[in-house]
């Protein structure tokens, strides 16, 4: 049985903090569960944004106009990113938004590599968001066939050496997507695969590619399978034989998505993100077994997650990652769109620029990685800037609305003695109980 959850803790652990003085959920557990079973309330707000196919088209069009310096991708990227960040800030389903951020980071596509800028916005909306409470297999299929991931991890240029294209050009495999899929996305680095498995999986995935100019209309949202680049013959992955063709890849992904090592890896990642850097083994075990019992139902895993014990006193709680911290701080003021700073700018200032992770393993969610002096000082400085926009608010009222009984007496005392409202709000945002989950 699950213990009753304090509504403020539910908002903080699994949401994005309380938005202004919005009504508190009367049954926090049911409120969290409902977010994993109901429809995605952000779907409407995000409905008009471009698809991956349209992003590709934009990219190719901009290439043609290179000489003119006309920028087509950037304004669309900016609008897409800001719309998604606005949906997060205004969300009535913040647990779902946390899951979107978590899975987007799990399946990182970064704009640092591979012409993904026109595609990463569509990627999060098309390959991640619809599946955060669905089967992991479905998310994995959507990710691996999304042009953003195919480009980001170089699979477009991976050619079967014995394929027609390979024999003609002398080109060959690029292992990048195959390796990261095994190590980061599915089995985990201790998942029991070998270098031979990586090479073989790369061969299985040859031909999984992105539409070129002129091919977009007949593609699957920008994804194409190229038989002439596909390595012929059977391949062996983890001791199982997979046949030639796109179906071989689908079957391999199906095996990986339901592999026990994958469930263990996902359980560890979820527990480390939402509970503690080093989560209790029982928590990992519970998540792992629900994933196994439901063939990878991520919604079922999310429902188990919210029933797991609270880490406890403030010091045991994880430091909020920059996106959660900045969104939570901005939500306390409940400023309307157009009257608040851009979340994207905040993420840059706090050292976690949106969709710009350095490496395919994404941004760290470990507390210690965000607790360096300069990182914390950046939070304080950014919070001071935000507090300047909330000059009309009563800091004590904001603090009590945001944290309720979890507000520390020392913080209340400091806010009470603050020289002005801006200082008072800054003290709230810089308090340990606000910095942590």
């Amino acid at each position, binding site marked *: 049985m699950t213990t009753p959850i304090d509504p403020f803790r539910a908002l903080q652990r699994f949401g994005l903090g309380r938005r202004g003085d919005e009504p508190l959920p009367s049954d926090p557990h049911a409120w969290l569960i409902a977010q994993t079973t109901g429809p995605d309330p952000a779907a409407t707000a995000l409905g008009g944004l471009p698809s991956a196919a349209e992003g590709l088209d934009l*990219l190719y069009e*901009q*290439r043609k106009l*290179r000489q003119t*310096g006309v*920028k087509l*991708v*950037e304004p669309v990227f900016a609008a897409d990113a800001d719309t998604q960040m606005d949906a997060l800030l205004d969300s009535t389903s913040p647990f779902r938004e946390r899951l979107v951020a978590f899975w987007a980071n799990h399946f990182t596509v970064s*704009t*640092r*590599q*591979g012409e993904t*800028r026109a595609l990463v916005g569509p990627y999060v909306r098309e390959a991640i968001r619809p599946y955060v409470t669905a089967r992991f297999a479905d998310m994995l299929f959507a990710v691996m066939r999304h042009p953003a991931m195919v480009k980001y991890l*170089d699979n477009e*240029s*991976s*050619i079967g*050496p014995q394929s027609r294209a390979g024999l003609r050009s002398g*080109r*060959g495999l*690029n*292992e*990048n997507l195959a*390796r990261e899929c095994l*190590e980061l996305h599915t089995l985990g*680095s201790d998942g029991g695969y070998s*270098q031979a498995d990586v090479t073989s999986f790369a061969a299985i995935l040859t031909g999984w590619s992105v539409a070129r100019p002129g091919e977009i209309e007949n593609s699957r949202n920008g994804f194409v399978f190229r038989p002439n680049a596909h390595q012929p013959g059977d391949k062996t992955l983890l001791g199982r034989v997979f046949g030639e063709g796109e179906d071989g890849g689908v079957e391999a992904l199906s095996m990986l998505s339901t592999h026990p090592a994958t469930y263990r890896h996902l359980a560890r990642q979820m527990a480390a993100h939402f509970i503690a850097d080093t989560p209790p083994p029982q928590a990992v075990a519970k998540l792992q077994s629900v994933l196994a019992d439901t063939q990878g139902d991520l919604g079922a895993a999310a429902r188990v997650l919210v029933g797991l014990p609270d880490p406890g006193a*403030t010091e045991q709680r994880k430091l909020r990652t920059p996106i959660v911290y900045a969104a939570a701080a901005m939500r306390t003021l409940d400023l309307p769109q157009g009257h608040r700073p851009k979340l994207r700018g905040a993420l*840059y*200032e706090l050292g976690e*620029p949106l969709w710009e992770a*350095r*490496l*395919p393993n994404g941004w760290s969610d470990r*507390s*210690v*990685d*965000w*607790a*360096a*002096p*300069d*990182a*914390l*000082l*950046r939070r*304080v*400085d950014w919070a*001071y800037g935000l507090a*300047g926009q909330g000059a009309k608010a009563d800091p004590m009222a904001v603090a009590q609305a945001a944290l309720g009984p979890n507000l520390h007496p020392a913080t209340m005392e*400091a806010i009470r003695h*603050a*020289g002005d409202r801006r*200082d008072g709000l*800054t*003290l709230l945002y*810089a*308090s*340990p109980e606000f*910095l942590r989950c």
Partner: protein
Amino acid sequence: MLNLRKSHAPLIGRRAALLGLSAAWSFGGASLAFGDAPMLVGPRDPRLVIVLLRGALDGMSAVVPYGDPALASLRGPLVGAPPGQPGGLLDLGGFYGLHPALAGMYGMYRANELLAVHAVAGATRSRSHFDAQDSLESGAEHRLNSGWLNRAALAFAQSNAGGRGLHDAAASRDPMALGVTVPLLLQGPAKVGSYAPDHTGRPSPDLYARIAALSGSDRLLGGTVAEGLRLRTLAETGMQDPMAMGAGGRPGAPDPYARNPFAQLAAAGGRLLGRPDGPRLAAMEIGGWDTHAGQASRLSAPLAQLDQGLVVLRDSLGPEAWGRTVVVAMTEFGRTARINGTQGTDHGTGGVAFLAGGAIQGGRVGGDWPGLGAGKLYQDRDLAPTTDLRALLKGVLAGHLGITDRGALNRIFPGSDGIGPTTGLLRA
């Protein structure tokens, strides 16, 4: 991994648009952190800077063994023009050549201040970036909860305690750091801070003090804000010193390294390390090395940034402190000996490490060359490692920092009892 901001790759059609945006995004790809403990120092007052090359530098492109007859057949398109030709390799004694983007480091080589060591690998044979970086920073085969440089900082303080030339102990004991985050390399029991240059409208000193007090007793956060402030003050004071700005620099002048965050950090780091009351151990990092495709064009930019950063570090330290400095640039593993199907290289094993600084006995390429011919490659794929990186690092810690006790060195690098420190790395 390719970093768009650093790239000259022809593949990227909308580079111009991205550059404009990315140029404003400083410090996304480079950061620098300082170790604290070593303020009790002897008269030698050594400096040690570790540069993490995250993403796996292709050692055979940085230091090209152009004299090996098997090289061209393995990776012909990746081998540059030989020494003496326009844009050719910079010759390192007739067998090896330095990549032409490393002209500044070539100057160090000719001044006997750069030592390249080839066919190096660390404690792990993992080809996972993340496992291998954990290993590189932990100084052990698997990830530990602390980094070897943190443990070395403690040993450095202990081995020098009671020596002459003590600096202001109160200042010295405060933690010290540069960079938005502290890498695993520097995490651990020795207190470490971080600093990265920044600006913007800020709270008053009084508000900072009250904020620092709020988390004063917090296990993770206690003292951190106060330390961040101390370091910021220290670094910004240094920046207002016209003499510290480097050639032609003056307060308010445009940053000459605006497109190279690594060089910005190197400049700030050099100023801090050069100060009598500054830190003595530092870590920096720079990415852009994961060249799976189009390597020949993609590698030039990060190499040039590394090169500029090391030159800037030398110049901002000044001749006196540079003479007491060792810089170690190291990466998690090398890359495949053969070119892959996309004109790049995949994750490999043996690579190159650079040791630079006025304290280094340089002007040579070290390590035993394993050869590239038939049967010589590790698993018929990678450059076979012949030097354990931990031997080099132990050699630096022993010869430069005075951590000569074998037990202490083996505790810094657990599981390395059979690996002795390399001798002869440092000037007599």
